[in-house]
């Protein structure tokens, strides 16, 4: 795990987040939620600051971060790719689409490409079942995606 030093400003931001929740250890999940929205992920340094502010052990914070799939310790790519694995998408072949993204981007679910451009995640139902299988890149929704259409989607962002 690479060691990064948080800036004074960043640390203050995190302290402020904790403060809005009265530094209450019962609000850990909400604090983490908010902290993740600040930089897209929860590196170890951020967890240490939060642990100290809420007076809980770092091990406990890490336990919560690793329990909930929503929290991530990996920085998201510039273009976060999410593949819907909800029932409708799944039965219409979403898994094959996911495999194709993994193969072409050479990363696993939860990872980010070394150039920081793409990250890959799965989600459950975006409410567009009529378009199944669905892939989201950032906020944009791609419908009826087939494995042979994956290359085109990547190319659209790879310029």
């Amino acid at each position: 795990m690479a060691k990064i030093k948080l800036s004074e400003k960043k640390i203050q931001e995190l302290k402020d987040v904790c403060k809005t929740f009265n530094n209450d250890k019962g609000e850990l999940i909400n604090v983490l939620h908010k902290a993740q929205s600040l930089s897209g992920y929860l590196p170890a340094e951020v967890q240490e600051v939060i642990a100290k502010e809420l007076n809980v052990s770092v091990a406990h914070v890490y336990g919560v971060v690793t329990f909930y799939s929503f929290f991530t310790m990996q920085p998201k790519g510039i273009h976060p790719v999410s593949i819907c694995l909800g029932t409708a998408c799944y039965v219409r072949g979403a898994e094959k689409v996911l495999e194709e993204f993994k193969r072409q981007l050479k990363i696993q679910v939860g990872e980010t490409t070394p150039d920081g451009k793409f990250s890959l995640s799965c989600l459950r139902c975006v409410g567009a079942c009529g378009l199944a299988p669905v892939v989201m890149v950032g906020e944009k929704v791609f419908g009826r995606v087939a494995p042979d259409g994956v290359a085109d989607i990547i190319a659209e962002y790879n310029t």
Partner: protein
Amino acid sequence: MNMVKLIIDGKTAEVPENTTLLKAAKTVGIDIPTLCYFELKDMNIENRPGGCRVCVVEVKGRRNLAPACNTMVAEGMEVYTHNIRVLNARRTVLELILSDHPAECLTCAKSGSCELQSMAQQLGVREIPYQGEQSKYRKDTSPAIIRDVDKCIMCRRCEMMCNDVQTVGALSAVNRGFMAVVAPAFEMNLEKSPCTYCGQCVSVCPTGALTEVDHSRNVINALADPTKTVVVQTAPAVRAALGEEFGLAPGTLVTGKMVAALRRLGFDYVFDTDFAADLTIMEEGTELLDRLTRYLKGDKDVKLPILTSCCPGWVNFFEHNFPEMRDIPSTAKSPQQMFGPIAKEYFGKKLGIDRKNMIVVSIMPCLAKKYECQRDEFKVDGDPDVNYSLSTRELAHLIKASNIDFNSLPADDFDNPLGESTGASVIFGTTGGVIEAACRTAYELYTKKKLEKVDFKELRGLENVRHATIDFDGLPINIGIAHGLGNARKLLEDIRDGKSHFHAIEIMACPGGCIGGGGQPYHHGDSEIIKLRASALYREDAGKPIRKSHENPFIQELYREFLGKPCGELSHHLLHTHYFDKSAGVFVEE
């Protein structure tokens, strides 16, 4: 208190409301098996996450089976603890746990005292029908504790001890589902965590997932080396518990047999850490009186209360959590670490033995002692003052492996000069004992009067935090005592916030003190065993001809011949230490 009536296996039980089915069943002679459940009665320690489901029972009218450890009684409940549905479920649960457990019982360090093993025996499991993937995780070896997470059954007892009781926060359950493990933050090794090596996680682990680092091999090799003089010291709490490993009743004192066994093992000199405990009282007591006298004279720089520093788990704890207060504890080394330099620099030199050719082994109820003896400040040119520290359990194994019939051994006496000790030093092994020993000596040194009543009963007991005022001939001395690091934390926070009115505080990291240490024979949650060990030590104290540390003739000789005076120059060099700030986060640089 409202009483509730219910029927368990056809028997009527009447218990107070808010009693668990598990405890209610016990009142009518029904012993429901448990695995994750853990309790140390009267010590405020309980773990009932309801996670393993081994204790499931059928409650009439309830759709699913109920975990008995976590379900409260209700009026008119009808409970079945061994009908066919329950028996099948319990067996399946156990078989599933076993299906993800390495079948390494033959070589596992916990074999014979493993609760999972006993449970498999109790339920008569003869094959494991489920063959699937097994968890694989790296082994983590620290200076004192080994984590072998593959053997973990996620009972969460260690997590409860580490967080709720000790407030150390080194361990937490991380990840989820099949990938879940108990680990330090960011799944780093224990050595990089705030772990104090108190070993309470090891004490309560039902399986071989948490065990001590075993140094018996090193000791066997040293004993076989003809160029080495091997000296052993035994901590007070060991003699009150070692017998349990040989089937003797808890609370049986085996001091004489232990000495005889050590001599048969081939140690050249069998000495007593108790001697060093008497020495600790001389140094720590003198330091207390010095600070007290300066304080009474109006010296504003003097730090009070003074905190005891005998317990290495406690030292690690304040170095990690309260480094800004590290000038408050006594600078006196622990008895183990006082013994080392006295053995090598005084006794060894007297005999003309070079310190490199002397191996000092300690037998301790403790796992933190393994780390303590490896600390750099306790070495001279790389040679540790104490070479190896073995737990009570390791000593028992060593005795068994050396064909010694422990129970038939005639009692033997310690060697002199480092084997003579007083009653004061014996009670070092139990909570309240160090401060009682200190009071016996400090009273006489301060008042210059003879202490008639040496038993300070007000300092004894098992309450989490205790306080008492001792009359030093008109001067009231306020004493605080805490055992368990969570209780210690409360006293420390009071000091930090300026709310403490104590002059002296004794702290031991383990519940009950050293008698409940992480290196002791497993108590499996029976707090009676810890109480019996304590009473054994008080019994040994009462039977000693000398009961005040400063009256130990060999201690007097040591000062006359070698050290000069307590807290003198040589004492400072050999018997005192300093503490470090270990609070730095692993990632965040301040």
